[in-house]
Each structure stands twice: as C-alpha cells, then as structure tokens.
C-alpha cells in the first residue's frame, strides 16, 4: 500500500513481443480472472442450489390396487397420502389407462363427497343433486349450471397394477391445518400457503 512503485502510470495492456515479462503478465490476468470466477462462480452455484429448493414433489405415483380386484363398472374410494379422497372407477372393459378414471370425490359446488352409481354410470352428489358423467363433467344440478367438473388425476396401468398420480401434500390439507392450528407446521416440514384459508385446487 505504499506509493513508491512508479509503474502505476503505465497502462496494463499494449504488451510488447512475447517475452517472459508478458507471459507473467498474461499469467497474472488469467490468475485474477480465475480467482474471481472461482469465488463468485461458487457463490452462484450455491445460490442455484438454494433456489432449486429441496422440498418434496407434491404429487407422486401411488399404487392403488391390482386391476383384477376392480371389476368393470365398479369404483373404489382411495385416500391419497395427504388425505384427499379420490374415486377410482373402472369404466370400460380393457386393461389400458383410459379404461380407468381417478376423480376427486369432492364436489366442486360446496365440497360434499360424491359417489359413483354403477347402475346409472354417473357420479351423484347427495347434497344438492349434482350429477356428473363418468368423465367427471357435471351434467345436472348446480355444478352443471356453473360448468364445473370433478378434478381428474392421471392414472396408469403397469403390469396389471393401477397407479394414480396423487397428491402427497397439498394446499388443501395445509389450509385445513391452518384453520385449526395457528402455526401451520406439519410434521416439521414447511409448506407454502397463500392468503386466507380457502378451498385450494387439489
């Protein structure tokens, strides 16, 4: 930090012929750039890891049943790991994915639980006579008037076993938890939550 060095007025570039001096100069510039990149680059990588978020994915493929345990026209109630209730129905003959439907059993109207009526091939909500076709589309009652439908979950059949991409944790669950517990902490995991307690999309 002393000012006795007189070379400070020289501009750093304008290097002469390739000499040991300019090689040293090049080395210094590379070392400087390397040092900066090493330091700030690592910081950037750490920031990336921070942002990547190590939370759990909120949906996972969950095993439901073996398909021979579910007769054509039948439906079963399946409780997802987060407590959401799904209706899993086998709607037509065959063993492909589109023979099965997984629908939220929560009526989009006011949240009652709908059930599958095999004889009528429809879902029925007993609260306000809401009726949904086998694809989950509302065809009668208040939900039809509002053009609503039951939330659908992807299903897949793999070697005779039926899987559903079901929510493992959800805002719905969180909202329920928040309503009764001010801390909103669930099993030590922090989960995102927005605004007032209200029904969230599953």
């Amino acid at each position, binding site marked *: 930090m002393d000012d006795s060095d007189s070379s400070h007025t020289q501009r750093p570039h304008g290097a002469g012929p390739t000499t040991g001096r300019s090689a040293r100069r090049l080395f210094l510039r590379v070392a400087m750039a390397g040092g900066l990149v090493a*330091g700030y680059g690592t910081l950037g990588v750490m920031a990336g890891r921070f942002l990547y978020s190590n939370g759990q994915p909120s949906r996972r493929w969950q095993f439901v049943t073996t398909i021979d345990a579910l007769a054509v026209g039948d439906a079963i109630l399946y409780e997802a790991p987060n407590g959401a209730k799904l209706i899993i129905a086998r709607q037509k003959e065959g063993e492909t994915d589109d023979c099965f439907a997984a629908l939220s059993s929560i009526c989009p109207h006011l949240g009652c639980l709908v059930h599958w009526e095999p004889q009528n091939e429809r879902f029925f909500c007993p609260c306000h006579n809401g009726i949904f076709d086998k694809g989950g589309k509302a065809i009668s009652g208040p939900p039809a008037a509002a053009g609503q439908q039951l939330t659908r979950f992807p299903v897949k059949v793999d070697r005779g076993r039926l899987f559903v991409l079901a929510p493992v944790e959800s805002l719905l669950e969180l909202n329920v938890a928040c309503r009764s517990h001010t801390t909103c902490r669930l099993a030590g995991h922090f989960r995102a939550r927005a605004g007032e307690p209200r029904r969230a999309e599953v």
Partner: protein
Amino acid sequence: MSLRTKQLLIAILGFGFLASLIVVQWAEVTRRRIEAGVAVRKVKAPASSRACVECHRQVSPGVVDHWEGSTHALKGVGCVECHHADTGDADAFEHYGATIATIVTPKDCSRCHRREAEEFMHSHHAKGGNILASLDNFLAETVEGARAPFDPHSPTPGMTVDSVNGMASVNVGCKQCHGSKVALRAKEGNLITVDDLKPGPDGKPTVREVLDRIERDASGRPILDPSSWPNTGIGRINLDGSLGSCSACHSRHDFSPRRARQPENCGKCHLGPDHPQKEIYEESKHGVAYRDLREQMNLDGETWVLGEDYSQAPTCATCHMSANTRNGRQVTHDPGIRISWTNRPPVSLLMDTDADGNVVKTSDPEERRRLVVDTWRQKRDRMKQVCLHCHTEPYVNAFYQQYDDFVINYNEKFAKPGQQIMSALRQAGLLTPEEFDEEIEWTWFYLWHHEGRRARHGASMMAPDYAHWHGMYEVAERFYMELIPQAEELVHRAEAAGRTEAAQAVRQVIESILSRPEHQWFRKAHDRQAVVAPPAMQR
C-alpha cells in the same frame, strides 16, 4: 501499489473467497449432520429461567442436565414457560418471584402443542384415569388392599405405624399407569380434586371458595396428596380439568421425542401377564429387527417419517402414532386410530367408534350407521398404509386374514361361551353378586383378562409363542380343565341343595355349548370319563 500487484492480490483473494465458501459448505454438511441427529449443540438458558437454572443446577442438577439436552432448551423454552401458573390456579404458589405450579398438565403443554393435545384428548389414553369401579380397581382396592384404613395388628420395629393405608396398591399399581385424580390436601384434612374446583374451559376453578380451604406448607406451597402425586399416569385427572400427562411418554425434563419413539417407553405399562405388548413386540420379527438396527433408525431426527427418515424396523410408535410417507407425514397422538380390533374386553370388538371415540356395541345396523363416525375398516386402512412401506398388499391382507381368523376363533370358541356360562350362573343365582369371592370368577378372569388377551395381542403383533403357548393353550386348558368342571360342580351343588330349576338352566347352557362341533372331541372324552367317576368327585 502496482497494477500487477493488485492483480495478484485479486487472484489470491478470489481463491481465498473460494476457500471461505468451502468452509461454508463444510458448515452446511455439519448442519445436515446435526439435523440428522449426529451431533448436539450447547444451549443457553432463556432470560426468564436463568435464575431457576442457576439455583437448580446446584440443588437438583439432574433436572437441569436433562433439560439442557432437550429441544426445549435449544428453542429457548425454559422452566417458567411450562411451570407458569396464575394466582387463581388451585395449585399455584410463589417461588422466588415467579408464580408456578408443580404439575404441568396437557393444558399447559397445549399452549404450544395444541394439535398434539387435542389428538391426545380424543384418545383412549386420555381416558385411562376412569378406572374407578372397574374390575381391576376392585381387585386393587378391595381384594389386594382395603378401601378404608385399618389398624396394624403387630408392631413394625423401627417405625410407628398407626394406620394401614389400604389404597397403597391402587396408588402404586393402578394409578401409576392409569393416572391419579390429582388431589390437594384441604385444611380440614379431606382432599380437594377437580370435582370440588369445577374448572371452566380455561382451567380456572369456578368454585373460588374452595381455594381458601387448601392447606399450604410453611413456604405457602399447596400440599399435593401423596395418593395422587408423584404420578405420571397417562390418564391423570388434573386440577385444571384436563386429562392425562404428556410426560407419561415424553418424560421430563428432556421431553425427548427420541425416547417416545422407542418401545421401552411404552413398556412401562404395556407389559405383564394381562397385556404383554412389549414382550410380544420383542419376540416378533419387528422387535428383533429393531434391536439389531436401532442405531440406523435416525431416532434423533427432527422429523421421523417412516419411508423417509428411516425404514429399518417399526417400533410401537411407528405403527400406532408416527408419521409416514403414505399418510401425509402426520403424527397422531391418538394411538387408537389405526387399531381395528379392541382386544381389551372378554370378547374382542371391532373398532367402529362414535364421535367420542367409544366403540359402538349395538348390533342394530341402523343404529350403527347413525352412531359410527370412524369405522374399523378406516382404522385398518390407516394401519395398512404403515405396513405397505415394507410389505406388499396381498401379504398385508393375508396377515389380517390370519389375525381376524384367530380373534374370531377365540371369540366364538371360548370367549362368548365363557361369557354365557358366567351370566347363566349369575342369572340362576348360583353366584354371589360379589366379584372374586368364588373360584370360578378368578378362573374366568384368568381366561379372558390374562390368557385371552395374551393370545389375541400375540396374534395382533406376530408373536407365535404368545399367541399359542402363553395364549390359546392356556385359554383352552383354563376353559376345559377349570371353567367347565367348576361350573358343573356349582350345578351339582345346586342340585344337591334342591335348586333343580336353577341347576337345570345352567346345565342346559353348558350342554348346548359342549354339543357344538368344535367341542365334540372334549364332549366324547368327558362322557367316557363320567362313566368312570361320578361328576361330583371329578375334581
């Protein structure tokens, strides 16, 4: 300073920065190790409790030492936070400037752990204190001791004994698991309990005049009656009206979740001749795996989610209470919500429970539909979600088939018939109304309360020896070799005394039971034996 020196300096500092970031990464790894429970941090007492800690470190270092190892200490929850009381509380007293109470109740814990307390309140555990007038209590109060104090009959050298406390067995034997009704001593010598204080929803007594009757020691501290304290029974009936004791499982003063996760913790009560769950577990594959692998089970983890934090073996908590990946990582403090049979009564019942959590006993289907809010199937499905972390669905279903078959066989072959015989005897007036004053009453109690439960619990948790040798084998022996002969003898005696009608009624019940196909083998041998010796002399 020249530009080149600066460049060199920047290069050195840049790599120095990298080095410091490596230290940061090392710290991150350490943090994860602490999170995984490999290391523990040192704590500082919160300001509110610094004085308590300083004094108690000398007078009772064990308490402070335990607390320092707790998560409470890490998070700044000190002594006053839990022991805090208001001057209006029955058991409140001044202690070096702080108003505190000795007993910390679930209501106190619920100030922070509200959800846990609510779940616990709903559980059968919380109702453990309501054992007055039950069979077990009668045994301890009357058969083992005496309800009223009685005089000693000879001196105890070295000690003056004026009176014998007949409730000693209840206090030590029953209440330490089931929980006492916490009692303060009144000035006039009797006891003050929650019944006298009639606390409101906030736990404050509504009958204020009782507070003046509380007897206090020289320092002004209310005197807790030794019949009710010390006590950490799970269903303790507290002065603020709350039920239970959190420290029954989360022992003070470290309140360790680690300990509550281990089966030894439950083994304080769930063991012995009548419900040896702890021994059954130890015999099972589950217990064996746990004993071997417990070091890898992340018992110190902040969370303890089966399938995420560990999956080496299940403990009691794993199946009945803890979080798992298939139930939304929810811990429950109601261990009943995953149990599908209750094997506590003489005849096992399916756990279709009503809004209060009580088993619905009626057989009328309409009534059942109206009352049942949580079915045994739902409970079993919850348990299956635990099983499925390690077992396949067909395996689990087949296990439950084995278990159901076992329970139903016990119910139908021994429990219901035994119950029928006992009630027939009672109806016919061949037994006194008093319990445990006749041999057959002990026999029947042994059959269902000890051996029958051992068998069923053994089957429920995969312990073959308990299911068979300690269980069904002894049930069968008790039934054929004691219960039936003793009942028959009562019938003979009644006949001899000329009470033909009563004797006939009971004989019919016994006959109808023994003529069933499952008892045929015994019936034949029985009849042959009867030819050799007259029934009255059989025993």
